[in-house]
C-alpha cells in the first residue's frame, strides 16, 4: 500500500534527522566557514568580527530582528557584498573576490525576482543555459524541477499569471535547478499567508532532505526558523548571540536577549541563595517569602543577581494552592485573559505589580472557564521548567 511506503520514508527521514549533528563531531569539516568576517557600510558595522561554521546537508537558519546583519551575512556568501575584512570559504575554496556568477551558490530572493518577460519554463532553464548545458539535459532538468514543485501544468505561463504561492515555487525551482552546493533563502515565505507558509515550511524540509543539499535561510520569523532548521543562529548588532539546535535555543537560551526574542517568556529578577550541582535555589523580590528551585548547573556565585526565566506554557494556574505553596509558586490576581481557542493566556498581576503570562490549554469544551477576571490564583512550576540567565 502506498501509505505504508510513505510511512517508511517518513521514518527514515526522521531517523536521519534524529542522528544528524555534525557540529558535535570535531572530525567533521564544515562546508561553509566564516572566519573573523567584518563588514562595514561607511560608519555602520553590519557584521562585527563574526566566525561561523556550517556543515554539509545542514538546514541552517539566521534569525534576528531587522538590521541585525543576517541578510548581509548571506549576501556575502552569494557574492553581492564583499567583506571588509576576514575570510569566507566554501568547500575549502576562498570566496573573497569571486564574482556572484562564478560561485556555486544560488539564492532564492525575498521578492522572488522572477524574470517577468520569460515563461516559468524559461525562468527555470535560465541558469542551466548559462552553463551551456545541452538542450535535452536542460529540458530534463526543468521537467524534473517542475515536478518537484508541482507546477508541471504551468510551464508556459508568465510570472504575472501565477498566484503568490506558485511564484514562490517557481523561484525555488529556479534556484535549485543548478544543484548549487548551498541554497540561500532570503525570507522565502514572507509574502505568503500563514496557512500556506506552514505547509511550505514542511515542503522545504522534504525537498532539502530529498536533494541532500545545504540550505541557509534568513528569517525574522522565529517559528519558521524553529520548524525548518537543524541549527539556528540568533543574531544581534552584527554578532552571533547563540548558535544551537531549535530546542536548545528555546529551552536553554544563552542570554536574556535570546529568551525574549524566541517565544514568550516571563522574567523575574532573582538572587542566588544557594547552589549545589544540578540545583539552584533563588529568591525573588516579586515574591517575598518564596523560594525558587531550578534544576540546572550555574556558573554564577551565591548572592549574585540573575534573571529567572520561565515560559508561559510551563506554568500551572490554579485557584487552590499547590502541595507546598512556598516553593516555585507565585500568587497574584488575574489581570486579563486572552482566549485563543486552543489556549487561554492568563495575565497574572503579582504583589509588586509585575505581570506574568501563563498559558493553559483548553482541554475541554466549556464556555464558562472556572478562572476569571480578578480571581486570586496560584501560579506554580516544576524545578526543570525555569532557567537561570546571567545577563
Amino acid at each position, binding site marked *: 500500500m502506498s501509505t505504508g511506503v510513505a510511512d517508511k520514508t517518513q521514518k527514515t527521514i526522521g531517523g536521519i534527522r534524529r542522528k544528524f549533528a555534525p557540529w558535535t563531531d570535531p572530525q567533521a569539516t564544515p562546508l561553509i566557514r566564516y572566519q573573523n568576517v567584518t563588514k562595514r557600510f561607511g560608519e555602520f558595522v553590519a557584521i562585527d568580527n563574526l566566525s561561523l561554521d556550517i556543515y554539509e546537508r545542514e538546514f541552517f537558519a539566521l534569525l534576528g530582528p531587522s538590521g541585525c546583519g543576517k541578510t548581509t551575512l548571506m549576501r556575502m556568501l*552569494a557574492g553581492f557584498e564583499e567583506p571588509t575584512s576576514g575570510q569566507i570559504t566554501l568547500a575549502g575554496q576562498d570566496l573573497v573576490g569571486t564574482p*556572484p556568477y562564478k560561485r556555486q551558490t*544560488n*539564492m532564492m530572493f525575498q521578492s522572488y*525576482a522572477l524574470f517577468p518577460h520569460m515563461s516559468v519554463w524559461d525562468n527555470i532553464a*535560465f541558469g542551466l543555459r548559462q552553463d551551456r548545458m545541452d538542450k535535452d539535459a536542460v529540458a530534463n532538468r526543468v521537467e524534473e524541477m517542475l515536478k518537484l514543485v508541482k507546477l508541471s501544468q504551468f510551464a508556459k505561463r508568465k510570472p504575472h499569471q501565477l*498566484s503568490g504561492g506558485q511564484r514562490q515555487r517557481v523561484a525555488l525551482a529556479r534556484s535549485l535547478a543548478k544543484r548549487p552546493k548551498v541554497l540561500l533563502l532570503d525570507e522565502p515565505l514572507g509574502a505568503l499567508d500563514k496557512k500556506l507558509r506552514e505547509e511550505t515550511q514542511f515542503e522545504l524540509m522534504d525537498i532539502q532532505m530529498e536533494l541532500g543539499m545545504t540550505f541557509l535561510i534568513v528569517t525574522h520569523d522565529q517559528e519558521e526558523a524553529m520548524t525548518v532548521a537543524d541549527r539556528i543562529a540568533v543574531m544581534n548588532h552584527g554578532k552571533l548571540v547563540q548558535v544551537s539546535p531549535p530546542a536548545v535555543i528555546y529551552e536553554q537560551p544563552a542570554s536574556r536577549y535570546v529568551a525574549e526574542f524566541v517565544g514568550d517568556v516571563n522574567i523575574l529578577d532573582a538572587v542566588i541563595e544557594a547552589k549545589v550541582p544540578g540545583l539552584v535555589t533563588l529568591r525573588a523580590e516579586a515574591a517575598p517569602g518564596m523560594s525558587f528551585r531550578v534544576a540546572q548547573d550555574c556558573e554564577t556565585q551565591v548572592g549574585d543577581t540573575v534573571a529567572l526565566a520561565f515560559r508561559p506554557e510551563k506554568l500551572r494556574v490554579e485557584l487552590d494552592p499547590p502541595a507546598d505553596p512556598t516553593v516555585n509558586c507565585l500568587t497574584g490576581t488575574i489581570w486579563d485573559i486572552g482566549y485563543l481557542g486552543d489556549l487561554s493566556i492568563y495575565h497574572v498581576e503579582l504583589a509588586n505589580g509585575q505581570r506574568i503570562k501563563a498559558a493553559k490549554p483548553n482541554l475541554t469544551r466549556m464556555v464558562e472557564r472556572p478562572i476569571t477576571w480578578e480571581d486570586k490564583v496560584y501560579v506554580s512550576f516544576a524545578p526543570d521548567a525555569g532557567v537561570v540567565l546571567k545577563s
Partner: protein
Amino acid sequence: MRKGLSWFNVTSIVLGFTFLYLPILLLVIYSFNASRMVTVWAGFSTHWYVQLFQNQQLLDAAWVTLRVAFITASVATVLGTLGAIALTRYGRFYGRTLFSGMIYAPLVMPEVITGLSLLLLFVAVDIDRGFWTITLAHITFTMCFVSVVVQSRLVTFDRSLEEAALDLGCTPFKTFFVITLPIILPAVVSGWMLAFTLSLDDLVIASFTTGPGATTLPMRIYSQVRLGVTPEINAACTILIAIVTVVVIVASVMTKRQEMERQKAERLAAAG
C-alpha cells in the same frame, strides 16, 4: 460622492481647449479648402494634397527631415539610455551631481542659445555645415529627453532581477541585454519616439546649424510662409501634425499600458 460638472468647470475646459486647439483646427480645415485664398472658404477639396506631392522642393525637405529624425532618435536613444543607467546605477560616483544637473540643463535651455553655441562650435572646429551638423545638434538636445524618460523607469526597476541573473551564472554584460533591456524596452522605445518627434519639428536649432543643401521641412515651410501662406503649406502642416500626434499617442499608450501591467502584476502578487 460623485461630483457633477459645474458650469465653471465646463467653461474652463471649453476655453482652455479652444485656446490650445482652435488655431490647429482652423489650419486643418483650411487645408481642405478648394479656394486659392487661405481666408475664404470655397468648398471641400483634396486638391492641395495632390499639389503637395508634386512639389519637389517640399518632398526633398521632408526626406531630409525624416532621415535626420531617424538617425537622431536612434543615436540619442543609445546615449540617453547609457546616461540614465549611469545616473541611477552607479551610486555616488565623483561628479554625479554635476553630471545629473548637466543632463537636465538642455531641457530648459532656450533653443536659440543651444543653436547659437552649436553653430559657434561647428565654425570653430571648421566642419562643413549641412545634414550631419543638424543631426549632431539634434542628438545633443534630444538625448536628455530620452535620459529623463528612461531614468524614471529605472528608478522603479527591481535590482534583485539583475542580481538573480548574476547569481544564476550570467555575466553583468549579458545580464544587461537579456534582463535589463527587455524589461525597460517600452521606456526606451517611447524615448526614441519622443526624440523622433522633437527632431521632426525643430526649426530654431536646425536653422542655426544647417548649411547649403540641407533644408528641413520646418525650414522650408517657414521660408515659403514668408512669401505668403498657401493652402499647400496648410496641407503639409496637417500631415506633420498627424505624424506627431500618432507618434505621441503610441508612446503614451505604451507607457500607460506598461504601468497598468505592472500594477496588475502587483495586485495579483498582493492577492496571492
